[in-house]
C-alpha cells in the first residue's frame, strides 16, 4: 500500500502508540472489572451468608423454646393441665417471632385422658389468647399435620414444611415440633409456630429487603419467604410453571443441594435484566436463603467505572490522534508546498517564494529551494544577457569581417586591356576576423605589385594589427621604389609602439609586366612557389629579413628573378602549409607542390580555388587552426 508521509507517521508512530496504550489500558480495565466483579460477588455472598446465619440463629432460638418445653414436660409429668396453658402462653410471649405455641398429647398419655392440646397464639391485636385445640372434639392426631406426625416419626425435633393455617387467619406457617417422652415412649409434642410473613419485619430488615430480593426455599421446594408476599408458601414448581421458567425449579434444587454459600446467574425472574442469585444454606431447618440482584444494580458501579475509564481512554487516543494530525500537518504542509513549488519550477515558472518559518530542516530546505529558484532566475537572466552580449559581439564581428574584407581588393583580377596577367586570391579567416591579408595593385610604371601578409596570432588583435599593416602598405605602395625598400619602411613603422611584439610575416613582389622581371622581398614569410606551365616547380628561396615589427632597422635584401611567359607564382600563409588533418599531419609544402603541379596550366582562379579545395579535402572537417590565404599571380608574357 502506498502511504504518503502523513499516513506513514500515522501508521508507524501514532498507530503503535495507540495500540500499545489502548491495549495496556484495556488490560487494566479488564483487571479492574474482574477485581470489582470478584469483590462484589464476595460482598454479596457474604451478605447472603450473614442473612442465612441470622435466620438460622433466630430459628434456633425459637426452636429452643419448644425443646425446653419438651424437656420440662419430661421432667414434670404430673404438671397440672391448667398450668400447661400458662406454659404455652409464656412460650408465645418469649419471642416475638413466635406466633403460636402448643403442647399436644397422645390421648392415652394426656392429663385429661383424652385429646388435649393447650395452645396459645397471638391475636391480630397482638394479645395472646389460649385455647385447647381439641375442644369441640377436633382430633389433631387424625389429620396429616406434619407438626404431629414428623416428631413421632423422627424421634426428635424438626421444622415442618410451610402450611396454611386456616384457623389462624389463613397465615402461612412453619412449626418446630419436639416430641416428649415418658418411659422412653413419645407421649406428645411441644411446638412453636412462626408466621412466615413476619419474617420480613422480624428477621430481615425491611429496608434491606427492598434492595435485595430475598427469598427462602424450604426442603419441599416451596417458597417460605419471597420478595413478593403472594408467593409465600407457594411451591416453586407452581411459580416456575406460572412464569414459564422451568429453570427456577432446577435452581431451587441446586440451591438446596449446596452446603456452602454460592451464587449463580440467571435470567431475571421479575426483570428484563439478568439476575445474580446469591444463596446460603440455613442449617438448622435445611432451608436455603437466596438473594436476587439485578446485574445492572450489582455491577452498575463497576460498569460505570469501566465505562468512564473507556471514555477516558478514547479521549486520550483521540487527543493523541489529533496531536499527531496537527504535528504531521505542520510537517507535511511545507513539504506539500515545496512539492508544488518544485513542480512549478520544473515547468519553468521560477517565480517561486516559499514561506519558511523556524530553523528546522524543512524550513532550511524551503529557504534553500527559494534561493535555488532565485539563483536559477539569475542564471537565466545572466544567460540571456550573455547571449545578447555574444550576439552583439557576433554582429560586430560580422560587421568587422565585412569591413576587413572590403579593405582588400577582389579575389580575382585580369589585365583586361592586354591580358598580361591574372590574379586570384582566397582569404578565409579561422575566426570571424583574422590577421591574414593580401593586396595587389598595378603601378603607373607598369608593375604589378602584390603582397601577402600574416599577422602573428589570430582573431581581433591580429585583425587590428593587420589593418595597421595594410593601411601602412597602402600609404607606402604608391611611392614604391622596390619591395625591399617597402619592407624596410614598413618594418620601421610597425616596430614603433609595438609593446606586445605583434609582428607580421610579409612577402612582396613587383612584376614588371613588360619584361617578366620580378623583384621580390620577404619578411620572415614562407617562400613563393613558381610553377611553369609544363608542371615544373621551383621555390623562390629569397634572402629573408625578419618578420615586420620585431627588429627596428633590420635589412631586407630582396631578390630578382625573371619569369617566363605562362609562369604562375603561388604565395600563401601558414594556414595552407600548416593545415592539419585529424591525425595532426600537416598539409605541408609537399601537399602544396602536388596540388599546384596538378593545375600547372589552369587559370589563376582555378589554380587558387583548386588548391584551397585540396586543402579542404585534406583537413576533412578538422577545425581550421589558422587563417588561410592563397594568392596566385600568373604572367602570360609581355602581350598575349
Amino acid at each position: 500500500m502506498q502511504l504518503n508521509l502523513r499516513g506513514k507517521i500515522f501508521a508507524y508512530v501514532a498507530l503503535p502508540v495507540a495500540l500499545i496504550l489502548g491495549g495496556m489500558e484495556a488490560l487494566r480495565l479488564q483487571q479492574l472489572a474482574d477485581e470489582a466483579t470478584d469483590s462484589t460477588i464476595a460482598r454479596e455472598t457474604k451478605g447472603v451468608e450473614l442473612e442465612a446465619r441470622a435466620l438460622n440463629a433466630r430459628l434456633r432460638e425459637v426452636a429452643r423454646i419448644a425443646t425446653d418445653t419438651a424437656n420440662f414436660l419430661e421432667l414434670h409429668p404430673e404438671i397440672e393441665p391448667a398450668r400447661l396453658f400458662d406454659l404455652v402462653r409464656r412460650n408465645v410471649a418469649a419471642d416475638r417471632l413466635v406466633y403460636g405455641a402448643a403442647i399436644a398429647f397422645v390421648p392415652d398419655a394426656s392429663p385429661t385422658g383424652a385429646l388435649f392440646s393447650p395452645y396459645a397464639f397471638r391475636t391480630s391485636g397482638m394479645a395472646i389468647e389460649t385455647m385447647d385445640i381439641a375442644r369441640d372434639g377436633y382430633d389433631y392426631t387424625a389429620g396429616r399435620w406434619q407438626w404431629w406426625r414428623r416428631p413421632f416419626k423422627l424421634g426428635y425435633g424438626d421444622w415442618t414444611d410451610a402450611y396454611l393455617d386456616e384457623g389462624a387467619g389463613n397465615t402461612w406457617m412453619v412449626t418446630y415440633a419436639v416430641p416428649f417422652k415418658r418411659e422412653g415412649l413419645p407421649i406428645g409434642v411441644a411446638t412453636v409456630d412462626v408466621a412466615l410473613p413476619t419474617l420480613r419485619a422480624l428477621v430481615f430488615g425491611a429496608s434491606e429487603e427492598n434492595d435485595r430480593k430475598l427469598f427462602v426455599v424450604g426442603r419441599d421446594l416451596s417458597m417460605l419467604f419471597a420478595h413478593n408476599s403472594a408467593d409465600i408458601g407457594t411451591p416453586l414448581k407452581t411459580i416456575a410453571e406460572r412464569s414459564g421458567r422451568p429453570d427456577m425449579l432446577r435452581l431451587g434444587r441446586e440451591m438446596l443441594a449446596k452446603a456452602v454459600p454460592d451464587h449463580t446467574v440467571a435470567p431475571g425472574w421479575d426483570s428484563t435484566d439478568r439476575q445474580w442469585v446469591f444463596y446460603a444454606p440455613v442449617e438448622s431447618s435445611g432451608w436455603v436463603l437466596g438473594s436476587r440482584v439485578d446485574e445492572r444494580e450489582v455491577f452498575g458501579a463497576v460498569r460505570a467505572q469501566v465505562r468512564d475509564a473507556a471514555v477516558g481512554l478514547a479521549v486520550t487516543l483521540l487527543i493523541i490522534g489529533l496531536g499527531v494530525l496537527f504535528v504531521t500537518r505542520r510537517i507535511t504542509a511545507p513539504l506539500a508546498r515545496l512539492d508544488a513549488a518544485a513542480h512549478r519550477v520544473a515547468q519553468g515558472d521560477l517565480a517561486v517564494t516559499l514561506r519558511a518559518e523556524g530553523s528546522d530542516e524543512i524550513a532550511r530546505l524551503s529557504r534553500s529551494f527559494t534561493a535555488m529558484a532565485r539563483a536559477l532566475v539569475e542564471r537565466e537572466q545572466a544567460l540571456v544577457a550573455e547571449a545578447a552580449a555574444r550576439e552583439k559581439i557576433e554582429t560586430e564581428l560580422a560587421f568587422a569581417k565585412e569591413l576587413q574584407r572590403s579593405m582588400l581588393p577582389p579575389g580575382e583580377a585580369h589585365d583586361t586591356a592586354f591580358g598580361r596577367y591574372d590574379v586570384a586570391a582566397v582569404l578565409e579567416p579561422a575566426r570571424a576576423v583574422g590577421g591574414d591579408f593580401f593586396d595587389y595593385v598595378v603601378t603607373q610604371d607598369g608593375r604589378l605589385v602584390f603582397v601577402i601578409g600574416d599577422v602573428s596570432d589570430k582573431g581581433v588583435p591580429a585583425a587590428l594589427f593587420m589593418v595597421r599593416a595594410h593601411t601602412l602598405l597602402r600609404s607606402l605602395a604608391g611611392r614604391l621604389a622596390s619591395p625591399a625598400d617597402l619592407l624596410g619602411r614598413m618594418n620601421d613603422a610597425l616596430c614603433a609602439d609595438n609593446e606586445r611584439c605583434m609582428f607580421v610575416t610579409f612577402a612582396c613582389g613587383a612584376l614588371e609586366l613588360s619584361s617578366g622581371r620580378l623583384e621580390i622581398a620577404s619578411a620572415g614569410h614562407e617562400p613563393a612557389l613558381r610553377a611553369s606551365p609544363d608542371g615544373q616547380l621551383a621555390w623562390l628561396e629569397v634572402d629573408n629579413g625578419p618578420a615586420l615589427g620585431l627588429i627596428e632597422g633590420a635589412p631586407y635584401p630582396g631578390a630578382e628573378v625573371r619569369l617566363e611567359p605562362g609562369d604562375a607564382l603561388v604565395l600563401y600563409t601558414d594556414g595552407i602549409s600548416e593545415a592539419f588533418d585529424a591525425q595532426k599531419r600537416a598539409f605541408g609544402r609537399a601537399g602544396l607542390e602536388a596540388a599546384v603541379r596538378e593545375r600547372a596550366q589552369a587559370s589563376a582562379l582555378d589554380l587558387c580555388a583548386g588548391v584551397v579545395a585540396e586543402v579542404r579535402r585534406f583537413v576533412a572537417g578538422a577545425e581550421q587552426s589558422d587563417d588561410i590565404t592563397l594568392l596566385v599571380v600568373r604572367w602570360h608574357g609581355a602581350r598575349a
Partner: protein
Amino acid sequence: MSLTIDLDASKPPFQRLCLVGHLDTTTAPALEKKVDEVLAAKPLAVVFDLASLEYISSAGLRAIFRTQKAMHAANGEVLIVNMQPAVQKVFDIVKALPLKSVFRSIEELDDYLDAMQRKAREENR
C-alpha cells in the same frame, strides 16, 4: 593541446623557463603571464629551454619576441636552448632571432651564462 611551464630560478641572475607541449594562441597568454612574473625579478637573462616544446605558432613566437624586447630594453638577454627541428623551422622563417642567443646544448648555454656572470661582476667592480 596544453603547455606546461617549469620555472627554474635556482641560479638567481638567470631565470630558466622549461616549456613542455604546445605553445599557441590558447597557451601563449599563460606564458606571457609567467614571463611578466619572471621579469619582475629583473634577471640578467631569461632562458627558454625548448627541449620538449613540440609546436609553436605565431602567437607563441610573439610571446618569446615580447620577452626578448623587454629584456633588451633592460640590457638583458633572452637565450634559447635545445630547440627542436620543427620549432627551429618556424623561428627560421620569421628570422627574428639573433643567432648568438640560440644554443644547441645546455653545456654551451652554461658556458655563456658563466661568461656573462663574470662580465657582470667585473662591470660592477
